[in-house]
């Protein structure tokens, strides 16, 4: 992803900064860069979010569609993640170039959202065994500036928060299949509860310490990263180690603790902002990319 070339002196400088808890841009090891977020930007989607963390730009659209539930879980709906790395981010993503990274991100997201306490998929069931809602979460990566996984997870959570699912009423037809009637009113819709939705926190190990929200330069200096998925209540739903380096068991423990504290705080800030945006109601001017 990063084809940055850093000299040894630059790497040493970054390393010393991390050790002294004062990174190149002045942040501490647990600080994040500024985040700009807006929901409801894609009109064809049931929910959407455009999130920008420094130079990383993500656009997420959520579409809700009706489908038959899986035979194994007839009383539950489904959620499916699809990631598209746009060539706008880097020419290497042209054609199928970004497919590996895309598959990786969607796997991590699927595993993070798999736990039953995260999303109650039974809320998405309409008629047991016959119809349920399936949420297609489509992620478009427009620009990569470090810390991709975290930004994607934040955008997904915000998009799910803004998703409005039309209300469905079941009208039975005599002697035939029960008919479904979708409410035409755009204002009558149900929402999904994302109060337990996780956020991914990537801990990049540089030297003996882990930093949160690494820039591309910092990512070049690190040998290994730990990806932890943290829910607002401080529970962990998935852990993944990325990169060719190795961790001591004690460093994994301390890194996870750092991730949980950052994750809980971040979850809270995002929910506050989402609620603040929602309270602005219809008067809010949509900016989008302009």
């Amino acid at each position, binding site marked *: 992803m990063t084809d940055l070339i850093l000299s040894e002196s630059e790497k040493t400088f970054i390393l010393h900064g991390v050790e002294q808890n004062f990174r190149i841009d002045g942040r501490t090891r647990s600080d994040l860069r500024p985040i700009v977020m807006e929901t409801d930007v*894609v*009109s*064809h*989607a049931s929910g*959407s979010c455009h999130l920008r963390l420094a*130079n990383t*730009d993500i*656009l997420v*659209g*959520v*579409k809700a*569609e009706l489908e038959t539930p899986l035979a194994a879980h007839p009383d539950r709906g489904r959620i499916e993640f*699809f990631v*598209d790395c*746009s*060539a*706008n*981010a*880097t*020419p290497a993503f*042209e*054609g*199928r170039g970004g497919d590996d990274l895309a598959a990786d991100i969607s796997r991590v997201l699927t595993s993070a959202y798999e736990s039953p306490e995260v999303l109650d998929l039974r809320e998405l069931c309409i008629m047991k065994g016959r119809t349920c809602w399936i949420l*297609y979460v*489509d992620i*478009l990566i*427009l*620009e*990569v*500036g470090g810390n991709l996984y975290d930004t994607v997870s934040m955008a997904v959570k915000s998009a799910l928060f803004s998703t409005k699912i039309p209300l469905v009423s079941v009208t039975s037809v005599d002697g035939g299949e029960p008919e479904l009637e979708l409410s035409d009113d755009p204002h009558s819709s149900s929402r999904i509860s994302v109060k337990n939705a996780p956020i991914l926190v990537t801990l990049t190990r540089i030297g003996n310490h882990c930093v949160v929200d690494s820039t591309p330069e910092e990512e070049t200096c690190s040998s290994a990263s730990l990806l932890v998925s943290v829910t607002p209540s401080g529970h962990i739903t998935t852990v993944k180690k990325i990169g060719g380096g190795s961790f001591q068991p004690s460093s994994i423990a301390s890194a996870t603790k750092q991730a949980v504290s950052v994750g809980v705080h971040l979850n809270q800030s995002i929910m506050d902002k989402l609620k603040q945006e929602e309270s602005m109601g219809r008067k809010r001017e949509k900016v*989008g*990319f*302009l």
Partner: protein
Amino acid sequence: MSGFELLSDQGLRLDGRKSGELRRIQTRLGVFGQADGSAYIEQGNTKVLAAVYGPHHMRDTRLRPNQEKVVVNCQYSMAVFSTGERKRRPRGDKKSLEMSQHLKQTFEATIKTELYPRSQIDIFVEVLQADGGNYCACVNAATLALIDAGIPLKDYVTACTASLVLDTPLVDISSLEATTGGPELTLAAHPKSGQIVLLEMSHRFHIDHLPKVIDVALEGCKNIYTILDKAVRRHVSNTGASVGWEKS
């Protein structure tokens, strides 16, 4: 029959426009820092992002470097959530490949290709929301992105669609007007000289109507050029003012 729905007796279309009226265009140059040039355009409800990388050395092993001209590589991609019905694949299908070829043809005719032999220019467009005139919005966005990247062009290239209802030509059709079955003529042109770079038409109408539909589309292209030029000048003067250039 379709004449009734698309154009009312007062001469108003489905979205309230008159037959020769363009949709509202809003633009922004320099959206991303990573790309050499980038631009965003909104034409009505169609939203397109374009990014330009180059000129740089030939990266693609599939394409062979040209000794006299720069190789223009275009990719047209639609976001999965851009259409009313969710798309399965963002790119790689026949329609996207055809659009990429059209873009390549358009920009090979516009960029001063003789200035960068043995090099490559990448133009990537991403359709975020599709509501008719996708190719045109892509061409307009890519023109702005090329200007943002500082790549020398012979002229702006703008594109516009046109249609015909009974005997009245319509300009800049939305997707609803396109699917109602009327013919769709897509035209890309150099506005200052009036030279046509790409012309494509679907469905059919009598050849006697062709000149006036082309004229209406060309007029649309010239109007879009006026809007884009104003946006470019505004962007340059804003950038210049923040950097400290003299105001001329």
